[in-house]
């Protein structure tokens, strides 16, 4: 029995692991699996929470376990186990096969996987400042510095909640296609919620940042600067007016463009949701947006919160162009949906087959070993154009500039909503008074067609996306102008 005690550097550990995983996969094949994979993880987490200047708790977490997924007679089975002993893994494989066999009894359309090239690789991370080299005391100091700076800005600031997490570990992946990958994982993430109050007027704001490049993200976001950004936003909200409700021209900042690219468009182009009937199902290969619009989901962006080398099916992450000059040219795929769409495009006209490409994009991601991978976004953004910010504002008699989002959501029918925490009126081509409690909504495709100018700046931020599981993602873009969007507010 092999028990793994630590992620130490012992030389033969990798070989032992490889041997163990391959044996487990072979056992699955012997039991009748036509495809088998095992994804074993060792994860270390440090989490710190502070509230209003007090450290609520410092947490250290250890997780070791495996997710095992197999195909039997065209149906999926999955089992998750804690621990990594040979007995545990073999038992887990046996259960996964049993699960798949049960599901196969009622399968109508058998699941097939697109072919992959077998890969053998070891991916080591070289963080810019390893979070393990920063003591917990130092991390606490940074958070408290941010907190105290924020409170020093104004007496109206009432609360500040900071969550910090670093997640470090190694993932070992083996599949019956002959792939074996050892891949280090490293994430540093922080989120700050703050609120202010003056009498009956409340304001709230948030900031979030994260990186796969290391603790350097805290050097790029010095606590004083984050506090100032947040504090100014809160004070502005206290003085802000509520928006007029109705349809107006809107200029979106990169932060809002990012959530729009992700929520409003991105989900529609996740191949499983497209297949399920999202509004772009019948529009692949066709014009859906203004020719100014190019949307990219990029797994290779350096340091991006959604970046990685191989996805959780062992497929190399790609930079995937989803919309090129307004035309849907690809989707985000995993192996199952690549196979499904390969069949779909066979029946489509020649011109669409020429513009629309079906290939493995590396979008299969699982939150951890407890769950099977799903099609998830990585770093999703709109490509910059050539307008300056001033040019974007020009000619708008009355409209809104939406700078930072609070949250966003979309539906497969193509309606989206993005709540805004920082917004301004645009009056006669200039930024005017601040506006609070506003949100924008509309139909994604109509909105993309109404984009009439794209800025030349570019920014990508970090976020987390929920689709039953949480995924770390990045999103962003330049400033973008839309001729008309619905703004929720006073009538």
């Amino acid at each position: 029995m092999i028990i793994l005690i630590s992620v130490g550097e012992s030389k033969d550990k990798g070989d032992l692991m490889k041997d163990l995983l391959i044996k487990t996969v072979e056992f699955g094949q012997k039991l009748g699996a036509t495809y088998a994979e095992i994804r074993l993880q060792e994860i270390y987490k440090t989490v710190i929470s502070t509230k209003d200047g007090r450290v609520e708790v410092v947490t250290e977490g250890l997780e070791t376990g495996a997710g095992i997924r197999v195909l039997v007679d065209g149906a999926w089975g999955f089992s998750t186990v804690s621990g990594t002993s040979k007995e545990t893994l073999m038992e887990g494989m046996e259960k996964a096969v049993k699960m798949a066999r049960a599901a196969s009894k009622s399968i109508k359309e058998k699941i097939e996987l697109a072919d992959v090239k077998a890969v053998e690789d070891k991916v080591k991370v070289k963080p810019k400042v390893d979070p393990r080299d920063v003591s917990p005391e130092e991390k606490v100091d940074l958070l408290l510095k941010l907190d105290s700076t924020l409170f020093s800005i104004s007496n109206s600031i009432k609360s500040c909640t900071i969550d910090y997490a670093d997640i470090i570990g190694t993932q070992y992946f083996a599949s019956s296609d002959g792939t074996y990958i050892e891949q280090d994982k490293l994430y540093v993430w922080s989120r700050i919620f703050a609120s202010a109050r003056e009498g009956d007027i409340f304001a709230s704001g948030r900031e979030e940042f994260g990186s796969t490049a290391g603790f350097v993200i805290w050097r790029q976001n010095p606590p004083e600067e984050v506090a100032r950004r947040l504090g100014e936003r809160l004070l502005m909200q206290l003085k802000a007016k509520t928006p007029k409700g109705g349809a107006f021209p809107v200029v979106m900042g990169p932060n809002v463009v990012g959530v729009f690219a992700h929520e409003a468009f991105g989900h529609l182009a996740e191949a499983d949701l497209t297949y399920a009937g999202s509004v772009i199902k019948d529009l692949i290969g066709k014009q859906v947006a203004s020719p100014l619009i190019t949307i990219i989901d990029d797994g290779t962006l350096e340091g991006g919160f959604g970046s990685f080398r191989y996805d959780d099916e062992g497929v190399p992450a790609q930079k995937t162009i989803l919309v090129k000059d307004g035309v849907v040219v690809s989707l985000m795929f995993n192996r199952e949906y690549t196979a499904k769409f390969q069949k779909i495009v066979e029946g489509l006209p020649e011109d669409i087959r020429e513009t629309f490409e079906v290939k493995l994009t590396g979008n299969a991601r699982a939150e951890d070993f407890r769950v099977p991978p799903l099609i998830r976004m990585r770093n999703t953004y709109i490509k910059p154009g050539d307008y300056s910010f001033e040019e974007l504002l020009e000619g708008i008699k009355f409209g809104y500039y939406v700078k930072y989002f609070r949250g966003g959501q979309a539906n497969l029918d193509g309606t989206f909503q993005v709540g805004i925490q920082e917004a301004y009126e645009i009056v006669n081509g200039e930024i005017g008074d601040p506006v609070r409690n506003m949100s924008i909504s509309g139909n994604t495709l109509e909105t993309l067609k109404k984009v009439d100018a794209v800025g030349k700046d570019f920014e990508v931020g970090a976020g987390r996306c929920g689709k039953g599981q949480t995924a770390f993602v990045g999103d962003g873009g330049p400033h973008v102008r839309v001729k008309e969007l619905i703004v929720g507010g006073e009538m």
Partner: protein
Amino acid sequence: MRDDLIDIGELGVSEALKRGATEVEAYISWGRSLGVKIEHGQISFSTVGIDNGIGIRVAVGKRVGFAYANSLSPDKVKEVAERAVSAAKASREDKDWRGLPEPRTLPTVEDVFDDRIIKMDVDEVSEIAKRMLDSALEYDKRVIPINGGVSVSYGTVAIVNSKGIRVEEKGTLIYAGLATIARDGTKVSPVCYETDHSRVLKIDPEWVGREAARLAVEALKTEKVSPGRYPVIFDQEALSELWEYTLTKAVQADFVQRDRSALKGKLGEQVASEILTIIDDGIRRGGYNTGSFDGEGVPSQRTVIIESGILRGYLYDNYTAKKENRSSTGNAARSPQYGPVAVDYASTPSIAPTNFTVIEGDFKVDEMISEIKEGFYVRGIQGAHSSNPESGEISVVATPCWKIERGEVKHAVQGAMIAGNMFEMLKRIAGIANNTRQFFYLVSPWIMVENVRIVSK
């Protein structure tokens, strides 16, 4: 099921005390789940998993640390105890820390455990999923069940602390849910969702399938609406979304103490329509979040929040209660919804409602609809998480949503927004129906609110 969780907890407590902790709490859980998934109109996936772990919270003086691992082996328990103590030492003193909770007598709760759920195998779970799926497919050809499933889960939780708490409880849950869309030519309905869940083996999968299908079909026909102020009926799904980010936060003691609640300082005042009474009922028979104790081993209870429109109380955990020299209301939960970890043993306690219960009125649903000349019925809310939790301001899309004209549900509405303030809306509640059901944390009938601002193009 495992029956040694208390022993493991005691080991964790003694190991941490040995290493310098002044107070220790061990939370241990073991759980198994079995699920069958539906994708694109067929059952194509089944899953099984066992998860277990221990989370140890320690205080070293007034410094608090926490560590966890997904293992219950004695070696790991010792390592977790060690790490919790070192985490506490890296922390800072919290002057408001006044210790872990003391033991109290636990209430008896009913219908939270069913042996029949434990004994179910994957074929039986599949059979239930198949019944749900078939009834959706049979309802109408235009219906596409896009995803859903049936799952059973069961487990045991134990809490041991150095103040003498030693509690253990087992629980079961069965869940069925289906999301559908309907497609007619190029017309696509919004995603419609229905669910039934129960702590004992008593669910109606055919009803879930039929309802999910009916909603999608009825959401196909849409017409434009004029903006304005209308009466709006919210059903359980819509209310649970809207309140999750506004009302339930405003009654949490941490929000109140930190000046983040619009309901701060309003105890005894009229904060809602006098027909509204809300009780957080932690001991509701068979409730989704029912248990005899909370995430700190404190007894669950019924807490009156709003009585005939008057604010009566807030929800407390041990920490916020001790700050006010009172007792916890048993509202410490273990799984944060937005933290970087989402497993119970991996999280420290935070305040959350249990079974947030609206006392029903005597309005029949049909009567409620028939009394509306022009208004809306809202089932789902998009963007509720972008609400302002402090002020209660909301600006969300209502979907799926239907227009009511002259007492009848006429057609669906696409992209209508609701803008306003949830705390103002509470005062304009004009009708509470008698169709109570539990939708996860919320137990409520339909509620009608007057004068709700609808924004549309």
